Structures are given as structure tokens and as C-alpha cells.
């Protein structure tokens, strides 16, 4: 399998889906020159009717995505940094997430919203959020958090073929990471987690950007004689509860690694599911490694103080496995 960069895999998915279906259109601020690189080259290939720069007006863009999707296009709306989802949030929360139910199921909303998320580059509080919890809580939108180039491509293609709205959240810092990407047409189904690393002693559920530190933490733990399993949910809505619960039943210990703020994070949601469905298998308390309930500070040292790190994961995992205490 050829190795490709994360951002390149996304770009390929867009090319292939636009090629496949003339009803796929892309719009957003600066998509023509592609500030993240994911939409690069689409204008030259597909022209202005299929991809275009918009004015800066997220409230309208999110609403337009709904309108164009309801009336026959598959819209890919690029919202750049995920913080700008907030600027467009009314149409997302009040229209996109609700219209299908309110119309008694009359409408279909084939639309995909792309946005980059996460910190680690000192872009400060308004360019570093990880807002999947907010989106998960809406109920009416899918939330995709691909961590690898292969999953990015497969999930985006799946999203573009789906009749429901999906948020495709790009792990910003991972744009340059490479991985193996299958050749040819393939999709990754929603709601199917991946076991990124098999292990027996402890389960780490690592969300999106957190897969990388979780995997390297697992390697470190391995040297210390702790065999960690790493589960990548890949999509948060829908969520593959079965794979997560199955892993806990095997290992009896859970660490949930999430770059969202702790309060009402995906990690807390998954913790609740584990407590509910795998309680009798637990040998230790369920632990969350998340961002504390603060805005992202700018200074690099302050930012690394709050971001989940490999070291923090290793520390917590070690304590968890070594402690004989039950919850």
C-alpha cells in the first residue's frame, strides 16, 4: 500500500467523490487556494460551479449548506478552523441537526462539514478548540474523527455518500503525518472502531488527534511490561460501543484519551457507557486524560501543561495497573 499524508488522503477523497458524483459541490472560505491543502487543485479540475471561495460569513454558509443539500446537492462545506463552527452554529444546531425530525423525515441532508481542530501550535484560544462534544450533543449530526490517512480518506468518502449531515474533523497537527492508504475506491463505515494496537492489560480509547500519543505511550508501557490495547473509535456519532466494551471486558481497565475539555467530553460519555455496560469487568477506576476545563493558553509551555501528553498517559496507565485497589 502506498504511503500518503493525511491531508493528501483527504484531497484524494474529494477528487474521487467529485469525479464520481457531479452533485458534489465544495464551498468555504479560501478553498480555492486551500489554506490547509485539502482542497488543493479542485478548482482547476472541476471549475467554479463545483468549488468556490465564499465571503467570510459562517452563519450563512452553514445555512446555505442545509439549503443546497435539501434541494439536491451533496455539499461539502469547509469551515477551516473548528472554532468557526461556533460562528455558524445557529444553522448547525437549529436547522441542520433538527430539520429531518421536524419535517417528519421528509428531507435528506447529504452534507459534510470539514474543519480542523486541536491545539499544540500556539494558535491560542480561538483557533485551538476540539468541539466534538458540542456536536455529539446535538443528536442530529454524525461526528467523524479520523486519526490516520486511510481512515480520513475512507470516512470522508463514506460521509459524501451518506444522506445525513456529518462533521469531518481534521486533526490539524496531523495534516503532515503519513500512513498507508489502500489503492482504489474504498470507504470506512461509520460506527466501527479500529483496534489500533492489541493488548491485554489495559484499554486506551484514543480519540482522533490523541491516537498518536496513545500509541507511543503504549510502546513505552510495553517496555515497562504493561500491554496496552489502543482502540480508535474513528466515529463518535455513531459510536461503536461494542468494540469498546469488548476491549474492557478483556483488559478490565480503561483510559480514555480526548483532546476536548474534560467536562462533557467524549471521554466522559464513553466512561459512562463503560460504567454502565462493563461494570463487572472493571478492575480499576475508569480514567480520563483530557484538557482541563480552561481555554487554550497561547504560550507553548502553558499549552503543553494542559494538552494530554504521552507522559501523562503513561503515568496514569502505570498507576492504574500497579495499584491493587478497586474503585
Amino acid at each position, binding site marked *: 500500500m502506498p504511503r500518503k499524508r493525511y491531508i493528501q488522503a483527504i484531497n484524494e477523497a474529494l477528487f474521487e467523490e467529485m469525479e464520481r458524483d457531479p452533485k458534489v459541490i465544495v464551498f468555504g472560505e479560501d478553498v480555492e487556494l486551500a489554506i490547509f491543502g485539502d482542497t488543493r487543485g479542485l478548482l482547476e479540475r472541476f471549475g467554479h460551479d463545483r468549488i468556490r471561495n465564499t465571503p467570510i460569513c459562517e452563519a450563512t454558509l452553514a445555512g446555505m449548506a442545509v439549503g443546497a443539500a435539501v434541494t439536491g446537492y451533496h455539499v461539502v462545506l469547509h469551515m477551516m478552523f473548528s472554532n468557526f463552527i461556533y460562528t455558524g452554529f445557529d444553522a448547525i444546531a437549529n436547522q441542520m441537526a433538527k430539520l429531518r425530525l421536524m419535517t417528519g423525515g421528509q428531507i435528506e441532508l447529504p452534507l459534510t462539514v470539514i474543519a480542523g481542530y486541536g491545539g499544540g501550535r500556539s494558535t491560542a484560544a480561538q483557533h485551538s478548540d476540539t468541539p466534538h462534544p458540542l456536536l455529539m450533543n446535538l443528536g442530529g449530526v454524525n461526528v467523524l474523527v479520523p486519526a490516520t490517512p486511510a481512515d480520513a480518506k475512507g470516512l470522508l468518502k463514506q460521509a459524501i455518500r451518506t444522506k445525513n449531515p456529518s462533521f469531518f474533523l481534521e486533526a490539524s497537527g496531523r495534516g503532515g503525518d503519513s500512513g498507508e492508504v489502500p489503492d482504489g475506491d474504498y470507504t470506512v463505515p461509520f460506527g466501527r472502531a479500529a483496534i489500533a494496537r492489541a493488548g491485554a492489560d489495559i484499554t486506551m480509547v484514543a480519540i482522533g488527534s490523541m491516537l498518536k500519543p496513545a500509541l507511543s505511550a503504549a510502546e513505552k508501557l510495553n517496555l515497562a511490561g504493561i500491554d496496552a490495547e489502543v482502540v480508535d473509535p474513528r466515529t463518535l456519532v455513531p459510536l461503536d460501543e461494542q468494540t469498546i466494551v469488548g476491549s474492557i471486558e478483556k483488559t478490565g481497565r480503561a483510559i480514555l484519551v480526548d483532546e476536548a475539555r474534560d467536562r462533557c467530553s467524549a471521554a466522559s460519555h464513553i466512561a459512562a457507557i463503560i460504567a454502565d455496560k462493563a461494570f463487572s469487568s472493571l478492575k480499576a477506576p475508569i480514567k480520563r486524560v483530557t484538557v*482541563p476545563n480552561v481555554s487554550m493558553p*497561547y504560550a507553548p509551555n502553558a499549552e503543553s501543561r494542559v494538552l494530554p501528553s504521552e507522559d501523562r498517559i503513561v503515568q496514569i496507565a502505570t498507576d492504574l495497573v500497579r495499584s491493587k485497589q478497586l474503585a
Partner: protein
Amino acid sequence: MNPTNEQLVSLFERMTLIRLMEERLRADAGAGRLPGAVHLYIGQEAVAAGVCANLDETDWITSTHRGHGHFLAKGGDPKAMMAEIWGKRTGICKGMGGSMHVADLSKGILGANGIVGGGFAIATGAALSAKLSGNRRVAVAFFGDGAANQGVFMECLNVSTLWQLPLVFVCEYNHFCEFTPTVTVTAGEIADRARAFKIPCEVVDGNDVVAVWKAAAQAIEWARSGKGPAFIEAQTYRIQGHLESEDLFLAGGKYREKQEIEEWRKADPISRLAKLLVSMGVRTAVQLDDISTKIAGIVEDAVRFAEASEPADPELTFEVMFAGQKP
């Protein structure tokens, strides 16, 4: 009314301070010495300086992601700004905000802003507060031509007119929204949007500080005297990239011609003011050079201060999140 000779000299000083600070940031960003992203104000100095020279320290401004010029023009401390951008605890926001968020409440600087259009409603609220308390303060909202396409602009034009708020809108038409030429995403004239509300409106050469100063003096006086909002569009040009290291994002893509930049360099606002001061016999070229040398020293001191300062205090993240409350 025209600025006095001494006022012209202090405009020259202020614009030179902004320019030399920005040039230094450009060099340090290029050398990879700064965290995060910096958006520079080079070429637009006359706008911030010409407007803020007409404001009292107690007046309010809201700024943008390109906010260093507004901060310095409104009397912000160069050392504290530099240290902020370096991510140090002596920074004006203690290293928590960085380049895109420089703010000094004691100087009426409500903050630069990472959200395009984020300042409109904040300035409108400050103007409401001024009106309610009868303190004769004025609020100025600086914003870009790109931000003018956010719906909140219209909403603030409406409410400020309706309630006759002491608010001055200052649109800096620098021709670009990131890599998108403004004309390609903007219908009609931005100033006409204000005219539709019968707001007094001036479109000025934003590289002519005297023109900006005169328009601002009038607009601010209008607002201060309780007649409601005023609007200025200053036509200018962004000389630097959208952000430093823009070429990395562009990856060979192009949104403007080098020659266009060179044309605008000829209309450099600081050289124009210098020429005026010399031709009027207010200062000689040598005297102006002396001023610039003195200001270069201030910039040098600011950098030295920033470099020598301690990094931000990571624990402060938790202390300042709320007033008197734990996060």
C-alpha cells in the same frame, strides 16, 4: 480641521513605532523565534494612528487578528506587547493570549480578536455602556474588508443607529481576505451598507494619515456628541502576507502579483508623511531620521525585555479562567 504640526510629528512617531515593531516581528517570525502566527500591519499604519490620535485614553477600541498597530496606536506598551507575542509572563496578557489577542483594558483596548467580525458587537456593547452611563466615551470598531461580509456588521449598523450609540466603524480596506481578493467575494460598496442606515460616511485614502486623521476627528466628534454612529472606510493595502510564513500555506499558489505590492509600496504612508513634514518645514529629513533611530531603540528594548522575561506561568491558566472561581 487639520492636525497641528506637532500632532503630525507625533503621528509620524506612532506610525514609525508600529512599522519598526512589525519589521522586527517579521524578522523574528522568519527566524522561527516566535510561537504561533503573526499577522502584520505593515502598510496600514496611517489608519490606526490617524484614528487613535483622536481618541482619549478612556475611549474604547476593538481590533482584529491584525491588531498590533491598533494596540500601539491606542497607547499600548511596546514592551508588554512584545513580551506577549514571545509568550512571556511579563506580556500584556501574561502570555495567555498572544499576537491575536493583545488587549489592555487600562488603555481602552478591548482586544485584538481571532474571530473575524468578533469586534463589531463588542464595540457596539461598549458604546451602549458609554451611552447608558453618559460618560461621553466613544467606541471604535476596527475591522477588515473581509469582516464586512459577516452578518453581524449589518446587525450592529442597525442597533447602533437605532439607539444612537457613540460608535465609529473603521473599515480597513486592504484588498484581501487571506488569499481571497475582496472584490471576488463582495457585492457593491461596503460604505453603501452604512449609507443605507443614513450613517455619516467617509471613504478616505488610508495611506494618507492626514486624510484619515481628519475623517476620524469628524466621525469621533459626531459620535461623542450623541448623534449616533459614524463610518470610515480607509483604502489601504496589506504589504505582508496574510500571516508570516504564508508561502508555506500557499505551496506555490498565488493570489496577487508582486508588481501590485511594489506599486503600493510607492504609496507608503510613512514615507508620504515624512515627505510632507519636510516640505512643510516642520522637521528636516535628518531630524526625522533621528526620531526613527530613537524609536528603533524602543523596539530594541522591547525585544530585549521580551527575551529576558520568564516564560508564561502555566498555572496561571487555571487562576485567570474565571474571576474568583476555580475552573
